[in-house]
């Protein structure tokens, strides 16, 4: 068949974000985690798995840039059984794999649902990238952008799509702020300026509540996802 101008657009199968599996049941919520190299994405994913794995069926997709470090770290830490962790290769272009051409990530997510599902939540970690990297809506239902205090306290002010539009902004490694001379109050105020009502969480995985507040945000997303089922 070939499409001409009077053929209505009618997707008759799931090629990306359809909230249902082919069998009609609601698929897992997909949350993307993006942000600069080393900001603490994998550490946050690991902590989220520990916090949520007893309440929800979880799986993780990592997008390493040229190694399998992230997947191997999660395996070593045994945050989930190995069959629940998949690594996607991105060909030197991590943002392409989460935004412009999401096919490999979609396949990884769907394969996980098929092999170990049904799942409640799939966390997709992007390879470390720049401030403009965001997840396609065809891949992620919600996205968390993770920056850290050591990358410079002017990053919230600089903005960019990740900082400005992510559903949740996490400013990580607050325990290091005193050591690197970052002004947390200023980072929070700048983030508020850029993001309006969108939430910001200041987090340290090394102290205090750890991943607790971010885990609570994820639980809210899961509750909302299920409520619209």
């Amino acid at each position: 068949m070939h499409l001409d101008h009077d053929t209505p657009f009618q997707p008759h199968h799931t090629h990306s974000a359809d909230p249902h599996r082919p069998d009609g049941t609601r698929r897992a919520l997909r949350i993307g985690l993006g942000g600069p190299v080393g900001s603490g994405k994998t550490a946050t994913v690991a902590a989220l798995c520990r916090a949520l794995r007893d309440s929800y069926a979880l799986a993780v997709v990592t997008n390493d840039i040229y190694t399998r470090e992230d997947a191997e770290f999660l395996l070593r830490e045994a945050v989930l059984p190995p069959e629940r962790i998949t690594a996607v290769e991105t060909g030197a272009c991590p943002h392409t794999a989460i935004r412009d051409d999401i096919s490999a990530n979609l396949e990884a997510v769907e394969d996980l649902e098929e092999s170990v599902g049904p799942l409640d939540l799939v966390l997709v970690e992007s390879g470390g990238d720049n401030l403009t990297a965001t997840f396609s809506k065809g891949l992620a239902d919600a996205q968390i952008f993770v920056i850290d205090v050591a990358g410079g306290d002017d990053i919230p002010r600089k903005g960019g799509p990740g900082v400005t539009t992510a559903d949740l902004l996490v400013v990580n490694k607050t325990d290091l702020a005193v050591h690197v001379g970052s002004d947390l109050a200023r980072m929070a105020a700048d983030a508020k300026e850029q993001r309006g009502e969108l939430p910001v969480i200041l987090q340290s995985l090394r102290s205090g509540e750890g991943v607790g507040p971010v885990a609570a945000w994820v639980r809210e997303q899961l509750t909302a996802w299920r409520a619209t089922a």
Partner: protein
Amino acid sequence: MSRAALLVLADGRFPAGGHAHSGGAEEAVGAGRIRDAADLGAFCRGRLHTAGLVAAALAAAAADGTDPLALDEAADARTPSPALRTAARRLGRQLMRAARAAWPDPALDALAAARPRGAHQPVVLGLAARAAGLTPLDAAHAAAYESVSGPATATVRLLSLDPFDATAVLARLAPELDQVAARAAEAARRCAAEGPGALPAASAPLLETGAEAHAARPVRLFAS
């Protein structure tokens, strides 16, 4: 038929996973066989007349209406390296998703159902071309071009090669691309009468062995 559909299908930004693959260029760079634009030209020429010709013929035959499952077997028979078979099927599956979104068609649905883990990419490419209303020669052009554009883009990233030089390499190959596409379309016509045995089976041993070595590397930028 819309000729512009060929531009959509052959666009390097068509979201079918190609960006993560180097077509053997990463291994060739690592082995010192590609160091500059001249080497890239030689690599691409070799790939075009071997793997490129075979892919173009498979794509043309699929676009011509030959049974895609028979072509999928023919592709296996022409791909000795298990790593390359895996990559070809993975890319075929990714292309299938994009093609079904772009040109919904029962023939694509049927192949997706018969090969849920993916058919060989050139077969899917040919079927996608057919669904888009394109000719076997068009499909051959798309496959032949892809066989050289992938390595060229990858080499720009791997060697920080001047992108103008890499594009010039592709432009110089254009007449040969036309010839390879024409040979492939001719082979597809014979295939219709004589079966997939009539399709070319040219092979590049270094691409095959290199793909195996590459797949075993723990650190790499590209998936193949």
